[in-house]
């Protein structure tokens, strides 16, 4: 706890987000709308960071938990189902369902070696997507579940088409999640995660049971991802089609964690700003700017920024692995609980 509660990059970034929320309208930046996506993906990244960053388990199916969260939230709130919960009870339900799903996936598989575990999580992600698509009696197939009622917050009322309240809601939840993750990292469980990541054999010799520790990590990560999914569904008043939660999303989450720095909460925030900011804000703006000047032809395959996403993700992963595998804001070993 060398740095303690001093001004870490996380708080600077979150402070910047607060400032952005305050200044966006007066300055007419129009950034609050796309920034909501950044906040949701930061939550997803925090979840993956618990699994991959803290515990060192490569997870390639994070989108599945996002999907599970989105569908749990939708089934909890949508008026075609009998539950019709409010926003907060439904969010609690979403998080619990996510955690249980994480346990269920983790229980039989966590004894596997690293790369095999990664493949199992990938397969799980694909199966969940197929289930959402094919069990149309419950999940409405490719239409997705909609419309979801807008959340009602005390003192604000119903969240409608105005962006501001959504932004503050998401930002508030993200701040809570960041605080939770920081405390978890320093807790007994969190230290067990780091120990298992550094050396599973040594950790088990020191009295840490690796499988239960990994299981907690899976459940925690899944819960955070489910929360991100629930918020995403709530924002668009629909789960969207199951194909929205595909392998690409899982890889995007992985990019966020890797670019930021594995095991670093500051890194997740920087990573989500960099990746989603580039994909959802910078690329469209660049494309609009280029098209307005007639530099590129939108009918050309190279002209649409959407067509460059895979390339950007792929190059980012490869370059980071080669040049700076520890990420932009690497976690500092020894910060937690002394050591070194």
């Amino acid at each position, binding site marked *: 706890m060398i740095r303690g509660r001093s001004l870490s990059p996380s708080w600077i970034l979150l402070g910047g987000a607060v400032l952005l929320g305050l200044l966006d309208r007066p300055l007419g930046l129009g950034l609050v709308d796309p920034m909501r996506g950044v906040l949701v993906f930061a939550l997803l990244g925090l979840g993956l960071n618990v699994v991959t960053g803290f515990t060192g388990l490569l997870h390639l199916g994070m989108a599945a938990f996002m999907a599970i969260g989105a569908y749990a939230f939708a089934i909890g709130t949508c008026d075609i189902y009998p539950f019709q919960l409010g926003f907060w009870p439904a969010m609690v339900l979403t998080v619990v369902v996510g955690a249980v799903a994480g346990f269920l996936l983790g229980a039989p598989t966590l004894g596997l070696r690293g*790369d095999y575990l990664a493949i199992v999580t990938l397969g799980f992600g694909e199966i969940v997507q197929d289930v959402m698509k094919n069990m149309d009696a419950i999940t409405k197939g490719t239409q997705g579940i909609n419309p979801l009622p807008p959340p009602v917050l005390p003192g604000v009322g119903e969240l409608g088409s105005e962006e501001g309240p959504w932004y503050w809601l998401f930002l508030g939840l993200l701040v809570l999640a960041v605080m939770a993750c920081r405390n978890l990292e320093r807790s007994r469980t969190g230290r067990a995660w780091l120990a298992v990541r550094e050396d599973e054999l040594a950790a088990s010799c020191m009295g840490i049971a690796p499988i239960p520790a990994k299981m907690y990590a899976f459940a925690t990560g899944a819960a955070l991802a489910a929360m991100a999914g629930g918020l995403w569904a709530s924002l668009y008043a629909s789960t969207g089609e199951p194909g929205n939660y595909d392998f690409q999303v899982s890889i995007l989450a992985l990019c966020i964690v890797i670019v930021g720095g594995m095991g670093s909460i500051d890194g997740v925030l920087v990573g989500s700003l960099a990746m989603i900011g580039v994909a959802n804000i910078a690329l469209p703006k660049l494309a609009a700017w280029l098209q307005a000047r007639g530099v590129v032809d939108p009918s050309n395959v190279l002209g649409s920024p959407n067509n460059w996403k895979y390339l950007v993700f*792929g190059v980012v992963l490869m370059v980071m692995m080669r040049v700076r595998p520890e990420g932009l804001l690497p976690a500092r070993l020894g910060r937690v609980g002394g050591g070194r």
Partner: protein
Amino acid sequence: MHAIAHLATLTPLAVAAALQAEPATAEAASGVLGQQIVTGLSNGMIIALIAIGYTMVYGIIELINFAHGDLCTLGAFFALMLVGALGMEAWSGVAGMAGVVLLLAGAAAFCALFNWSIDRVVYRPLRSAPKLTLLVSAIGCSFVLVNLALFWGGLPMEVFGGGVAAAAPKDFPAMVPDSSLLPDAWDSWVSAEAFLRSSPSWNDPSVWWLTWAPRVALAVLVKSRELNFTTSDLLVWCVTLPLMVALTGLVRCTRLGKAMRAVAQNPTAASLMGIDVDRVIGAAFLIGGALGGFASVIYALYNNTISFQMGYRTGMDAFTAAVLGGIGSMPGAVVGGLLIGVARAISDGYIEARWTNSVVFAILIATLVFRPSGLLGAKLRDKV
């Protein structure tokens, strides 16, 4: 509803009832199953070729080469471009056959060199890095290849639809006719049966040991009358089987094969014995890539449609096959490929096509959880 009806015909009771009530139904059902097995085996051969690429690389550097499936996509796009550039759709007869050979050779060379360069540029600098670092860059590489295929499909060329919809699946011309080979053969079997029946020993039980083999053969042939074994099936078998035999020979009998086995067993010891480890790994990528190139052309000729995302799907099937057979084992990859091909076909027929991918992933997960060493693989142990 369809699925339930199919499942019902599978239960022995229902089969027996159908045999008594309406023999034609049972025969048709078995004909469908047989057909699915034939189609499944042909697809399985293609999967097996790709699976060998996964298993070779994994056996040597313990990397799940995520980009391998997408490399095959690029191979198929390269082949389609060759078709368009040379105007091969119009070639027929001997020229058509020569065209197929040209496509196979071209795509194999392209994929081999491409795969080798990927190893040289992306993986080789990471040889001493942790395994997950390598895996993540393989995923990144896979994404880059997918995107290249997307751009490639958007080229303003006639075969790619004039560059209009880059992401749309592309039609691959049916250069190998889809005509059935069996009916002609069937006629000769009928005369063979007549010939046999006319012989005096056919109906004499005391010489059963002379006649049982032709009887079984005839029974199988009667069943196979329902089957549709086409020229493109034949092509698949004629390309894949010799390749597998050649590869086995290469690994078993050549110096390079010996070096590969040595590196797979222990890279450090192999390099101490004077083996150029990087060269051997490069050769594995070269050979795996060439097999992927062959597979991509056969896939395209067999299915007649390619898309920029097909590599992910086929790649996962092939990887599942490699794991099922025992990753690192080449015969295992072939067995696994055939099993996955048949499992896919049966799932398409008796469960529902929309669940088939889930079935494959379920097989993958079940194998990894219950028998991580696969069917033919050696016991795995973590190298500490």
